């Protein structure tokens, strides 16, 4: 009996010691590492790992716990449940399709959540979730002056049917129409689509001056777009920067909205996704120094954050951010500023 009591006491002691022991900040990362959006996840993870390496130069201060959400809602919930078992202090989640079903669960658990890329308004209603990325308004801010500059009258939108693509197309359509341009065609395609010939043919039939394209795999759209839309100006959104897709000759001569900081950034191998991942990890680490529960209020109170992605204004009321974007042209695999 005494022996059993001693054993239980020892167990309790060990448990208490573990609890009291300081551990590095555990950042849970939910990102697609397989499936059709894996290119986003691997790029994101590269940036996050770079940040961890930089922070841990003087000892272990932060560690990543990574789970593959496959950019799929069901998989994301399961990935979140696996992640939760590992007790993350903060969670960073990427891509809307996989983040939407996870956000309420994270809310219920009360873990701070930083969403990079494609946050929908529904995700921003929770006190513990924070969006850190550029948004569709930023894209529109860069796109509309470009249309004026090119004396365009008509615009067509070719977009992916994911939650992200639908949201982006809706914002671009609204903003372009408000600015006095006519949206003559709007065509959606599935995320798994690899053959865009007929969809683009429908766009070409409307004879738009400019075609705005948003795709999860722009490399699969670009060759057909250049061939079929040869009478229109083609503008991709910034997605084609992932994994340096724009270096393919298929993108030569097309325009794209890009984060201005990308053009100036010397981050090795960096594209917006790895840059934002880097910043998100740094931000989570910096602002959780006085406790992870203070993370979100601390970020909101910051007002602005100067990271690798540039000097980003954080609007505390909407938890939205404002970043500098511009339209560039691709020439021989490089992004060329127009001014």
């Amino acid at each position, binding site marked *: 009996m005494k022996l059993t009591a001693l054993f239980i006491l020892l167990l309790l002691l060990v448990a208490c010691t573990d609890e009291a022991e300081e551990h590095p900040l555990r950042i849970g990362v939910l990102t697609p*590492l*397989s*499936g*059709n959006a*894996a*290119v986003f*996840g*691997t*790029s994101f993870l590269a940036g996050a790992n770079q940040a961890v390496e930089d922070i841990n130069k003087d000892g272990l201060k932060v560690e990543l716990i990574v789970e593959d959400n496959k950019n799929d809602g069901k998989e994301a919930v399961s990935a979140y449940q696996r992640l939760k078992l590992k007790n993350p202090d903060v969670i960073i989640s990427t891509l809307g399709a996989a983040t939407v079903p996870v956000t309420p669960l994270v809310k219920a658990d009360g873990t701070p959540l930083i969403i990079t890329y494609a946050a929908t308004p529904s995700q921003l209603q929770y006190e513990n979730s924070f969006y850190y990325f550029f948004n569709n308004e930023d894209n529109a801010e860069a796109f509309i002056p470009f249309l004026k500059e090119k004396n365009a009258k008509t615009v067509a939108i070719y977009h992916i*049917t994911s939650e992200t693509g639908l949201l982006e197309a809706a914002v671009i359509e609204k903003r372009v129409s408000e600015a006095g341009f006519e949206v003559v065609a709007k*065509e*959606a*395609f*599935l995320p*798994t*689509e*690899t*053959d865009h*010939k*007929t*969809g683009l*043919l*429908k766009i070409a*039939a409307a004879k738009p001056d400019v075609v705005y394209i948003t795709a999860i*795999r722009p*490399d*699969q759209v670009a*060759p057909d777009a*250049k*061939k*079929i839309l040869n009478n229109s100006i083609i503008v991709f959104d910034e997605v084609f920067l*992932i*994994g340096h*897709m724009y270096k*393919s*000759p*298929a993108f030569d001569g097309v325009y794209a909205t890009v984060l201005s900081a990308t053009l100036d950034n010397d981050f090795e191998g960096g594209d917006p996704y790895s840059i934002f991942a880097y910043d998100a990890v740094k931000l989570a680490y910096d602002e959780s120094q006085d406790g992870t529960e203070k993370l979100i209020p601390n970020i909101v109170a910051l007002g602005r954050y100067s990271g690798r992605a540039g000097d980003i204004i954080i609007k505390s009321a909407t938890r939205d951010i404002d970043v500098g974007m511009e339209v560039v042209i691709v020439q021989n695999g490089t992004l060329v500023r127009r001014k």
Partner: protein
Amino acid sequence: MIFIQLLINSLIIGSIYALVACGFSLIFSTNRFVHFAHGASVAASAYMAFLLSVRLGLPFIVAVPLTLIFAGLLGLAMYVWLYQPLQKRKSSNVILLIASVATLILFENLILLSFGADVKSFTQFGLPKTITFLDSTITTLQLFIIGVALVLLVLLYLFMKKTTLGRRMRAVADNKELAAIMGIDAKKVAIYSFIIGSVLAGVAGILVGLEQNLEPTMGTHLMIKGFTGAIIGGATSVPASILGSFILGIAENFGIWYLPSGYKDAIAFGLLFIFLLFRPQGLFGINKGTRK
């Protein structure tokens, strides 16, 4: 002129579906189980061609036959190491189907681990030239894809009709038991069907890689469409599967001219559903259950 352009678009994608479908159908007709891992042969071959020609710098003309040998061996390995042991244990077709889907997913992930998720392309060729006629356009590469597909499909047809092995394959496809009584070694026929079918998948993988770049999940998507084409035409007949694939290409491309492009898969799966429900033997297949 839109009609011609839509027809060209249908022919391009139909050729790719047909290459996947005829290999699948060849294997299905002689083995009578659904070999979904056929999609793995498509993707693995595309990446092998990329490895040999881009990473190792071999001339494309050398990389292609090596890739096709690899595809054939891969098909053989799948049969010998996966399906044959399961068949020896008298596993049902459902078990074989599950094993094939698992293999497809396994290969998808192996490719992801080995090559990464970023976009791969055969950069050495640059962009193909565009040919315009009757206000319609097609690239030299797309023309090449259609040409290769048609030549291979004719060769396959002749092989099935004129060679001893082809006739044996047709005999096994028609009636396995009767073929065995006639002294045909069904196991040998199955092995050859896996090798030839996988080589055809290899050709499809290379052509798709040239046209649409490479991604680890490329085999799954193509396999689903190839399977749909085979069901529409008649999965037990290679020529019927080929025709079914072209019909699928036409239905998709003409369908989304009138419907939003996002309905493309809905058109394909709608057709699949209708055929499975009302004409499971396909448009050109024979319903053996009603044959006298």
